[in-house]
């Protein structure tokens, strides 16, 4: 019985390892396959190209017309800007919701949380109207504001779940020694939970880096992020696969590294602190 169970388990695991990894492998090897291998009707499965080429990668690793490095820079600026703004706004709020009891704190925190869960398509229209009104379409600040709006509720709730775990005695003793609440936050809570802050920062970057809808609506070309540029290759599908794959590879690598950096807190981050992993 136990043996039979193990065999079934292994079968399931092996099948799913294959189905999980295969599309990733197939797609990313597109970046080194020569153009001839996919423009015509293909007859057989090429597991690995016999003559790998770096033609596509070198084409996208450039600034200007065909290059993707401009978008890499845009994505980086927007992700860092979003993260900085989010941490600045979220840390005090998360601290207040974790520690202080004040009138309306419950209602306010619930309202903030529910913002994270409304369909973005409903928010994108008012935001677009706002950004358009101030003539900020296709600027970094427009995308940073939009991303902050979506990351902020997440950051507040996840930070809050970390702050609650800091023993209150530490700040209380500091406050006995004459430290103010702000002082306790800046000198005690933030240093003590620096790992949590880094975690939330990385999640913010992942979100901003991957976000598509707002970046698509709020940019044209000069502030477009990598997902937007990767999506716009779609017009000439047949000839651009190598480039799409190379650009995707470039956009994916940092994210995978970031994910493994926050691996320990992945579940907490993914569920806004509802489940502690």
């Amino acid at each position, binding site marked *: 019985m136990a043996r039979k169970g193990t065999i079934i388990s292994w079968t399931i695991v092996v099948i799913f390892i294959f189905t999980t990894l295969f599309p990733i492998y197939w797609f990313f090897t597109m970046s080194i396959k020569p153009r001839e291998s996919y423009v015509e009707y293909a007859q057989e499965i090429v597991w690995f190209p016999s003559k790998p080429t770096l033609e596509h990668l070198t084409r996208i690793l450039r600034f200007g017309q065909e290059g993707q490095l401009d978008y890499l820079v845009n994505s980086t600026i927007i992700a860092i800007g979003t993260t900085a703004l989010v941490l*600045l706004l979220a840390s005090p709020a998360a601290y207040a919701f974790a520690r202080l009891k004040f009138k309306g704190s419950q209602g306010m925190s619930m309202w903030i949380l529910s913002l994270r869960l409304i369909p973005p398509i409903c928010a994108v*229209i008012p935001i677009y109207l706002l950004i358009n009104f101030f003539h900020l379409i296709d600027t970094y600040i427009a995308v940073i504001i939009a991303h902050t709006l979506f990351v902020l509720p997440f950051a507040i709730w996840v930070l809050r779940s970390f702050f609650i775990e800091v023993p209150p005695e530490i700040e209380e003793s500091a406050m006995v020694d004459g430290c103010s609440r702000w002082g306790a936050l800046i000198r005690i809570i933030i240093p003590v939970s620096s790992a949590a802050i880094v975690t939330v920062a990385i999640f913010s970057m992942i979100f901003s880096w991957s976000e598509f809808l707002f970046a698509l609506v709020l940019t044209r070309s000069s502030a477009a992020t990598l997902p937007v540029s990767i999506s716009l290759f779609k017009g000439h599908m047949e000839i651009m696969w190598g480039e799409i794959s190379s650009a995707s590879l470039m956009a994916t690598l940092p994210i995978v590294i970031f994910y493994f950096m926050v691996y320990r807190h992945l579940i907490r981050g993914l569920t806004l602190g509802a489940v502690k992993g």
Partner: protein
Amino acid sequence: MAYRGLPIGTILKKPKSSAPSYFFVIPSIAFLVAILVFPTIYMIMVSFTDLSLASNVPMKFIGVENYKNIFYDERFSSSLDVTVLFLFVCLTVEFGLGLMIALAVDSIGERLKNKLVAIFILPMMMIPIVAGQMWKVMYFEKAGFFNILLVYFGYGRIPWLSNETWSKIAIMVTDIWQWTPFMFLLIYAGLQTIPQAPVEAAVIDGASYLQTLRYVTMPLLRMVIIVAILFRAMDLFKLFDIINIITGGGPFLATETMSLYMWILGFRTMEIGYVSALALLILLISGYIVNLILRRIYRER
């Protein structure tokens, strides 16, 4: 304020300049109000007009006309059907597969577990746009993987993205590939935290594997499962990125979800007045449901 652990009679220094508690939340609230609440109020006003960014005709007030039109909008109801179909099929399959993989990994030797988890959650790390392109390459008619495979085994090519049924399947497979890992990860984490005693007791009492799963393990995982399903349901409700990439809503609206339809209305045909009314309606309904559920999940935390 209680200063615990201090001997009786200790004289406490008054904390200097204790700012009122709500000072801490003012920056966040101010940001959210400025960026979301004011524009939403503007959107409510716009929803009673015929504002269209496609033409230069000044907008005029048309009352509840936009709201009335929603009920006669067949394209909207079709997009709602597609959204609900994707939601139910993907949710069911992702839950089933996620549970299956979680149980399988959980029953495999301790040493490999962490490596397996790291492999299985890789799809989740793909940017949705990248996942979309990845699967588009798989479906591509001329040289996509599936069609090469079909030809290799002597079948004809399938027009994956230009057939109404196949394109729906194509979208669902992509979403299932990318997000089954989420279900897996949460259920697997849940399995690590449940007490072993009740499970062992059930086995000793002669319960079969499936009985133990159904009556002991699943009830212990209840909370995790609710959260996992809820988060997936909300993500599926707003499904946009992969459809935009893979099919763009076609063929013949077969894969056009609500989000995609609203994006087309707002940013392709530019009917801002009408799409504002639609957004507001969905905002109200989803806001109400979300609040109801959230209060139940987070209440005790």
